[in-house]
């Protein structure tokens, strides 16, 4: 087995000098040590996971979104991303076209998410069937393909909530990603990131935000 002949070149008792038989076996322990050391190093430096991303499609600059498709006022909610991790949202009055009272909320699950889920459900009752499709997918009752078509059909229902996201100059990048994340979580198919306008900046001022 693995052992080192450490007997050294001791003198033999007999007078005749015999050619000593050296063992051909080598001790592998240091080699194993080295091997595992390098494994540890590579294991720690390897980054197996690729970074996560979020896809976003912006409208083509030339055709303005307002002209292309008229959004029904009752369907749209406008979210203004303000400073201090606050969101101000308002609805537009369908009859007068005037913006409604601004409400302040935040990025927590009980904040904007609850509002979005509630409002979306009011307009798009089919939204409840997404979890059912999800469980069907998990039980292999429907294919991935069917699941995707059904869900995107529900998400893009013509009555579904349309979210207009406007980030103020005092909000952070984190806020934008968070709100896009909420769009995913709340199954909102139609949303747009639009530039903030002066009346909205003024509106933020009325609630002491910027």
């Amino acid at each position: 087995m693995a052992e080192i002949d450490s007997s050294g070149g001791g003198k033999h008792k007999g007078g005749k000098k015999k050619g000593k038989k050296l063992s051909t076996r080598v001790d592998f322990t240091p080699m194993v040590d080295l091997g595992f050391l390098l494994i540890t190093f590579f294991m720690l430096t390897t980054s197996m996971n690729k970074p996560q991303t979020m896809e976003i499609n912006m409208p083509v600059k030339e055709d303005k979104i307002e002209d292309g498709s008229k959004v029904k006022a009752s369907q749209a909610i406008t979210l203004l991303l303000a400073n201090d991790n606050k969101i101000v949202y308002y609805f537009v009055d369908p009859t007068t076209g005037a913006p409604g009272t601004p409400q302040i909320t935040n990025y927590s699950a009980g904040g904007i998410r609850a509002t979005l889920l509630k409002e979306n459900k009011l307009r798009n009752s089919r939204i409840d069937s997404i979890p059912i499709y999800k469980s069907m997918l998990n039980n292999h009752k429907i294919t991935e393909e069917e699941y995707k078509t059904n869900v995107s059909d529900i998400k893009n229902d013509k009555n579904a909530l349309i979210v207009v996201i406007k980030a103020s100059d005092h909000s952070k990048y984190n806020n934008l990603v968070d709100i896009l994340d909420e769009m995913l979580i709340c199954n909102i198919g139609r949303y747009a990131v639009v530039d903030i306008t002066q009346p909205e900046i003024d509106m933020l001022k009325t609630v002491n935000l910027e």
Partner: protein
Amino acid sequence: MAKVKVPRKSTTVDMTAMTDVAFLLLTFFMLATKFKPDEPVIVDTPSSVSEIKLPESDIMLLTIDKRGRVFFGIDGQQTREALIQRMAERYKMTFTPQEVKEFSLQSSFGIPIAQMSQFLKMTNEEKGKADFSGIPIDSLNNELGDWIWQARLSNNNFRVAIKGDRDADMPTVKRVIAILQEKKVNRFNFITSLEKAN
């Protein structure tokens, strides 16, 4: 009664098999490792629930750090070589073949093109210490737009990824998005990290 003689066994074990396993694993990890490209700034990406993975190649990476500096990075050495030559032409500059070679090794940079030669002469330690100003993005001196445009001319299959810091300010982010739209990039990715379970 005769005493049972317990044969004395050697305690040494054959290490060969263990060595085999160790080196097999070592080879695997060595081949599977892809070293992280060195980044000029540390960026703390926001988290999201999105599970889409970033494609491996053909990435144009725009990094925005918390001070609002913009860094530009692109995949592939040949593409970078082609890109620097196009940019040199665009800005009426000349780069020596050595500088072009050096540029092709840069994974990401954030300096105005006028300082490019100086930047390429720096050693890695100097780059680590240097305080880069970022690529100019204002409308008078829109170098980022040129970089994006020239890169798209060199290779049109690029996927644009924005890697922003959590605390990056919105005007810079909006400006970068506006530049992308100007350059007809209407589809891009935000790099995020996985949301911690809460």
